[in-house]
């Protein structure tokens, strides 16, 4: 195995650029990880556990603020807006738990300053979240690209990029207004990983949530787990956690975004866990029939178009072996969407203005509708599978019939 040290050591220009970039600060100052890792690794502030610290104290502190602000927006502003909506609806002799069409919802509550501010503040924080990260990675693009280049051919694990692959339009949106989305920015993986760290309000800095999700995935009844597929793997946190749980299995993480799997691979190399990452489509994964024992995915389907969803389900069945387990984890794989005026309002602005174009259709399907699509695709469906760690006490599981 070639160490990244060797690859990067060849480029004195890169090393001195990185040095200049970070004001001559000593690289890897607080490094605590055990993996063989080296000069191209841009980690000027070291790592805390498996989290590479953001490269400046200032950016880290901005993100600390955004994490706190998001919590404020999600709790205090939501509570206040929910109460205001209830008051408005009661004044109109209507119920806040009614399910109204969004035009009606907006007519009743859309111009209330507090309700409007609850959405505005959340979105403003979201914009700041992305732009601060974007500036950092693009401001130092050459060095960060060199870092990924150095990792591309390193193990453990492998990386396959297919830049000429045709991508369905639904995958090209700037989902949750991330600049360039998953496919259109070289630092999509970096930006996604650090940006979502504060979605989780600090509870996933060590992949704790992903480790929990990996732990929830049920095994086939015969106990044989030799190959696992993680669809829509993003920065690879679930794929890595799956490999750590099923260390003898061959774990694949696939994603439509080339920059996503590139980052995922680099991070897995850094952590020292061997996953195979590939830029491939969940609906056209190129794997043989009956190949995997487990196919899983996390928070992917709400970002997939209705047509895409049907295709992904068909493909998942195809690549699973008889008796293999399909375990999707998303908002409504354990219970249906929230009801009432506030929920409609929130789902609407999340879809329309937070760049989640498919989530309303996904919500319309709900728990039952999605499960029916799984049946239609040919799965045997157990609606009372083990919970995936979200609020719901169960999660749907599909089995490929013999």
């Amino acid at each position, binding site marked *: 195995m070639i160490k990244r040290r060797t690859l990067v050591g060849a480029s004195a220009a890169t090393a001195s650029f990185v040095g200049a970039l970070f004001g001559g600060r000593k690289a890897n100052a607080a490094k605590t990880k055990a993996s063989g890792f080296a000069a191209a690794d841009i980690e000027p502030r070291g790592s805390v556990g498996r989290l590479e610290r953001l490269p400046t104290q200032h950016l880290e502190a901005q993100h600390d603020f955004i994490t706190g*602000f998001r919590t404020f927006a999600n709790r205090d*502003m939501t509570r206040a807006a929910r109460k205001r909506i209830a*008051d408005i609806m009661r004044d109109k002799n209507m119920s806040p738990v009614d399910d109204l069409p969004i035009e009606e919802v907006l007519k009743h509550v859309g111009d209330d300053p507090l309700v409007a501010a609850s959405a505005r*503040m959340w979105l403003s924080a979201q914009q700041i979240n992305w732009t601060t990260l974007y500036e950092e990675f693009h401001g130092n693009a050459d060095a960060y690209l060199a870092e990924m280049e150095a990792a591309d051919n390193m193990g453990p694990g492998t990386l396959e990029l297919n830049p000429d692959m045709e991508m369905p*339009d639904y995958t090209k949106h700037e989902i949750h207004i991330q600049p360039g*989305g998953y496919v259109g920015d070289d630092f999509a993986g970096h930006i996604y990983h650090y940006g979502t760290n504060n979605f989780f309000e600090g509870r996933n800095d060590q992949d704790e949530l992903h480790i929990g999700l990996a732990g929830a995935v049920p095994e086939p009844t015969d106990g044989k787990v030799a190959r696992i597929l993680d669809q829509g793997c993003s920065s690879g946190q679930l794929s890595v956690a799956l490999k750590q749980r099923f260390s003898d299995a061959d774990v694949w993480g696939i994603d439509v975004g*080339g920059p996503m799997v*590139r980052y995922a691979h680099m991070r897995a190399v850094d952590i020292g866990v061997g996953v195979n990452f590939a830029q491939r489509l969940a609906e056209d994964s190129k794997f043989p029939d009956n190949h995997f024992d487990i196919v899983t995915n996390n928070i992917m389907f709400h970002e997939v178009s209705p047509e895409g969803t049907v295709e992904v389900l068909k493909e998942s069945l195809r690549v699973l072996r008889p008796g293999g387990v399909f375990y999707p984890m998303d908002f409504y794989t354990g219970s249906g969407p929230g009801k009432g005026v506030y929920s409609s309002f929130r789902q609407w602005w999340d879809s329309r203005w937070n760049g989640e174009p498919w989530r309303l259709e996904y919500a319309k399907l709900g728990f039952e509708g999605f499960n029916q699509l799984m049946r239609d695709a040919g799965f045997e469906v157990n609606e009372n599978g083990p919970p995936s760690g979200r609020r719901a006490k169960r999660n749907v599981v599909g089995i490929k019939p013999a």
Partner: protein
Amino acid sequence: MANSESSRKSYAADFIKSDTDQAVFLGNPLMDDMMTSIIALGAEVWANRRRTHIIELLFEKEGAVTSDMVEAYVPTAEEEAQFKKERDAFIQITYGHIARTGTDKTALTDDAIQDNM
């Protein structure tokens, strides 16, 4: 495609741009932008406060501080917990008002002015 200032190979593809920068929630686009500005300003103020704390901590512990030391500093679990408490209090005192935005729009009507004369 985003591959700024580098001749290295890009794996970025075409994408579909969002129009969220056009969203107006608060009745006037400038109000929306000002909300974003105020939140961004909060992030800057907090970043400086956190930095000041770290400088103070380092000064107490080491008797001297350089910017490299500030950058490299990893707060202890207790320090981190204290920062978090302060951060959340800062957010409450700065933005908590907005969560209490009232509904009485009569503040500047003639009646309201009369009442207070």
